[in-house]
Structures are given as structure tokens and as C-alpha cells.
């Protein structure tokens, strides 16, 4: 986007506009900065009045950073008697942090497991949707398929439907097939939701690749699949990457299906994070730590693929 639609604004306008834009950027950033900071506070600092927001300073608004929130997030702890504590010295730095509350670490919490589930289901379904989506998009782009446009639009529109309208039939179907609360079940479900967007986006990318290269490859004796694999795929790499991020964002953040169709074995992180509230009172630093860790993968991808983000979330309607 190098061109600007307004011709040469005056300096005063520019300053005024700039200030407002920066102000809104600050409003956008504050909540996350606050959460990231809270992850490194002790529970008492986290809910201190007045709020503390300077790292490491001794002033009234300062707090000493600690990994307590992270330790609490990943472990389950139990209170112990003074004799027990004296008899068993702390085993590691994490245990030492917990000791100041007369507690010992008894095992890992469910967060690690749930986060791993998120990774397996999120990346698994992303891979599957992009894999199937690329094949279908290539087919829709290069071959004449009857009613292709109507079919594609119709399929895309299913993504906008409220998912709960299909929740019970899927729930019953999954119980019959033994897919409820399994990784495979969730991967298939998210793939089903994502594939419509994946095909829609990828088709618009593949449409932009000239057909001459493939035709040349076919004449040279490549099979159709070889031509697709060796010629089209490398050129569609950007499109595939940005499609992947949208599939990932959806599968990573999805909540309703995760909470309805999974209970223990395959539950992802989103249903777990709010339940941290219930463990030992309001453990805000642990929640903040959980949110921070949960956000990192999506944040990193968002920054890496910022240029292509718009095309995906607008279902390809805007291509700049």
C-alpha cells in the first residue's frame, strides 16, 4: 500500500491525526501489556491498590518480578506442616518459590497437557485443512467443475453459521463413532470448519499463478500431479502460509465445540484458562501467565504474516 488517497495533508492535520492514532494504539496495547506484566507479579502485587506497573523499582508503583504465576500455572501444590518443610529442603527453584507459602509442589497441573492438546489439535487440523484445501483449490482453479462458483460460495457461507446449530448432531455422531473427546475427532471437526475458508483463499492465490508453467511441464512429460507438486506448489507458498495462519487462529481459539465435545482427554487450552480462577481463589498471576503463553504462538504468526492477514479475515474480499 504505497499510494495514499488524500493528496498532501497539511502538517497540522498530520500531527492531529498522528496523535489520535497513537492514542488508539495505546488503548489497544494496554490490556495485553498489563496481562503480560501481571504474569510476573506475586498474587498480592497483582491485586495491590494502587496498581503496580514498574518492574523492579522500589517506589510505590514498583513490583519485584517473580515466576510465581508461571509456577502456579504448571503445578499443583499442597499445604504442608512446618516439620515436613524443615525435614525436606526444596528440590529446585520452583519448589523454593512455593515454600514461602508453606506449600510443596505435588505434581504438574493440567495446563501443560491442555496446551499440548491445543498444539496437536491446532496444528494437526491446520495441516489437514491446508493439505486437502490446496488439492481442492487447485482442482477448482484449473478444471471446469459444474457450478463451481455457487458451490464455493455456498460452502464458504457455512462457516458463518452459528456452530451450536450443528453441535448436537455432531455430538451424537461422534459418540456413535467413538470420536468424542479424542484428538482425531477434534482435528476432523476443525478441519471441516476450516476447509471452506482454506479452499476459498487458496483458490484466489492459485488463480493468480499463470498456467503457462504447468502447461510447459505437462508437455515435457510431467504428470498432472508432478506439475502441481513441482511447479504450482512452490509458487503458492505465500498463499499456503497465510491460509495456514487463519486455520490455526480458528482452531487455536475455538471454544464452544471444545467445551461441548471434550471433557478430559482432548480438551484444549481455551476451556481450561477460565477455570484457573477456581483453583485456590482468584489466582490472577497464574491466569495471566496462562494467557500469555497461550497467546504467544498466534501473536508470533500474526506478526510474521501481517501482510497477508487482511486477505484471510475478509474471506479474500480485500486483496491488498
Amino acid at each position, binding site marked *: 500500500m504505497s499510494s*495514499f*488517497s*488524500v*493528496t*498532501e495533508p497539511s502538517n497540522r*492535520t498530520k500531527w492531529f*491525526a*498522528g496523535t*489520535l*492514532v497513537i492514542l*488508539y494504539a495505546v488503548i*489497544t496495547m494496554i*490490556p495485553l501489556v*498489563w*496481562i503480560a506484566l501481571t504474569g510476573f507479579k506475586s498474587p498480592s502485587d497483582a491485586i*495491590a*491498590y*494502587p*496498581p503496580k506497573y514498574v518492574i523492579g523499582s522500589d517506589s510505590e508503583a514498583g513490583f519485584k518480578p517473580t515466576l510465581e504465576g508461571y509456577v502456579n500455572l504448571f503445578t499443583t501444590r499442597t499445604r504442608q506442616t512446618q516439620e515436613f518443610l524443615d525435614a525436606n529442603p526444596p528440590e529446585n527453584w520452583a519448589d523454593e518459590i512455593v515454600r514461602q507459602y508453606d506449600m510443596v509442589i505435588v505434581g504438574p497441573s493440567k495446563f501443560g497437557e491442555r496446551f499440548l492438546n491445543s498444539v496437536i489439535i491446532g496444528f494437526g487440523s491446520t495441516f489437514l485443512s491446508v493439505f*486437502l484445501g490446496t*488439492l481442492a483449490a487447485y*482442482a477448482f482453479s484449473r478444471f471446469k467443475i459444474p457450478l463451481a462458483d455457487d458451490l464455493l*460460495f455456498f*460452502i464458504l*457461507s457455512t462457516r*458463518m*453459521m*452459528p*456452530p*451450536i*446449530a*450443528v*453441535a*448436537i*448432531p*455432531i455430538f451424537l*455422531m461422534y459418540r456413535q463413532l467413538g470420536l468424542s473427546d479424542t484428538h482425531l475427532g477434534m482435528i476432523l471437526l476443525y478441519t*471441516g470448519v476450516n*476447509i*471452506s475458508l482454506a479452499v476459498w483463499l487458496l483458490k484466489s492465490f492459485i488463480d493468480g499463478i499463470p498456467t503457462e508453467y504447468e502447461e510447459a511441464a505437462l508437455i515435457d*512429460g*510431467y*504428470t*498432472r*500431479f508432478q506439475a502441481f507438486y513441482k511447479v504450482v506448489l512452490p509458487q503458492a507458498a505465500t498463499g499456503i502460509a497465510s491460509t495456514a495462519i487463519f486455520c490455526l487462529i480458528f482452531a*487455536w*481459539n475455538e471454544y464452544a465445540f471444545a467445551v461441548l465435545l471434550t471433557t478430559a482427554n482432548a480438551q484444549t487450552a481455551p*476451556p481450561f484458562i*477460565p477455570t484457573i480462577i477456581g483453583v485456590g481463589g482468584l489466582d490472577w498471576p497464574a*491466569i495471566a501467565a496462562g*494467557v500469555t503463553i497461550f*497467546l504467544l504462538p498466534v*501473536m508470533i504468526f500474526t506478526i510474521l504474516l*501481517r501482510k497477508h492477514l*487482511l486477505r484471510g*479475515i*475478509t474471506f479474500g*474480499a*480485500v486483496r*491488498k
Partner: protein
Amino acid sequence: MAIADDAQSPSAVQRERTQRPNRLFKNMTAKIASIPMVATALVIFVGCTVWTIVHSFTNSRLLPRLEFVGFEQYERLWETRRWLVSIENLAIYGVCSLILSFVIGFTLAALLDRKIRGEAVFRTIFLYPFALSFIVTGLVWQWILNPQFGIQSVVQRWGWESFAFDPLNNADIVIYGILIAGIWQGSGFIMVLMLAGLRGIDEDIWKASRVDGIPVWKTYVVVIIPMMRPVFITALVIITSGIIKVYDLVVAQTSGGPGIASEVPAKYVIEKMFQSQNLAQGFAASTMMLLSVLIVLIPWAYLEFGGKKRG
């Protein structure tokens, strides 16, 4: 697809060039490749949706049964106070968040269109809340709106002692607390969309309006916004279909409380289906939601795609 091709591998190209296969066989690979997607869409979405609609006319409770009772579930639905509260909340949330996020989004886009330095950075910053989970947004704003350690305490600390802002514990305004979080998440997205729309407008139009001496704001309202109709419609459809589905945000921020003050339709459906064992009632409510999405989608489909074919 790979298997199909490998089997006929060496002669495939020649055959493609020399023979003319029959119509059905012609794009076989293409058809095979597109089957998974078409099948999922048809089976999962259409099949299950029809199933849900059919069962909304029954008296299923714990298990789905096909004992039809006509529109009884719908009559009961519209007599339930909780549903009416949900609809009212959705209406307030929907209208306010549409208006506010469009106003904020468009204003920001117009501001950013003034050759601001570091525009790419700002665009990324504004857009990233859209990539966040509603659960995260809900929790973050539950924290920020908490009277003990959120905005209220900060402002009081700055010297405005009587400042009171505690929407999440006040049944009358709780939906506006949720609204703030929703707008925070959504308006950056509209901003980026609008900016792309503004950039798509020919620079000559600005020059012409300058020559004619039309003030900038008037150019926006009279010329630019009508020209950006497709962008507005796309944004409207995406945002509205998201609004109708709103669920996680409420669960994470208030769990529908205080009382039933911040209930939303999606939450009503899920509770009827999975907690109060009243399946048919949940089906009826979700059919109403489906209907409202269709009302938004169909005009869009017509404008975006019907128009394109003719033109």
C-alpha cells in the same frame, strides 16, 4: 489424487492430448480432489442443520425423538424471560457494536490515511486483537473492569476520587461492559478493512472535490462512503455473523451474570441442550439464530455474487 495419477503415470499426458475422454471421466482427478471439502460441507453443515431444524418441532428432552408437536417449542421460547433478555442483550450489543466499531474503524482509517509515519506498524497493532481468543479478551477485560484493581482504581488514584465505573457488577449496564471488550477486539479489523477500501479509491476524485471546494468531511460522507459500499457490506456481514454467535466473550467475562442480566442467545441454546436436558427447546432457539444469520447472508450473497455475474 496422487494414487489416481501414479497408476496411469507414464501415458497420462499422451492420453490427455490424444484421446478425448468422456464427460464424466474428464476431470476425474479434479472431482476426486474436491470431494473431501464438498462432502464435509454437505454432510456436516447442511445435514446437521436440517436435522436440528427438524428436531426443533419435536418434544425431545434428554434424547432426540421424532414426536412432532408443531410450533410449541417456539411458542414456549418466546414466552421465556431468559430468552427475551438474551435477545434484548444481543440487540443492544449488536447495534451498539456495529455503530461504534464502524465509526471508530472508519475514523481511524481516515486518520491513518493522512500519510502517518509507521503506518504498517499501526495497522498490525490495530489488527492483532482480532487474532485473539474471545476467552482471552473476556478475561483481560474482566480484569480491567474490576473495580478493585482495574480502570476505576487507577482513575481514583490519579485524583478523581468519586470516579465510579463498575459495569460488570451492575445488571443495568453489564452488557455495555461486554460491549467495550467486543469493540476493542473488532474495530481494528474494520479499520484495516476501511483503509484498504480508501486506498482503492481513485486519487482524481480527491483532486476533483478539492477543485470544486468541497470540504473534506463532506467529500467523505457524500462521495467516498457511497463508493466504498462493497467494503462496508463485507465488513457488515463478517461482523454481524460474528455478533450473532457471541458466546465465549460473555462466558469469560460475566458467565451471563449478574443474575441473567448478560445472557446471550448462544448461551441459552447451549444451556438448554447440555445442562437442562431440554434439547428441542435448544434446537428451536438455534433455529432462530440460523434464521437471523441467513437474513444477513442472503442479501450479501446477492449483492456480492449475483451482481458480479451480471456485470
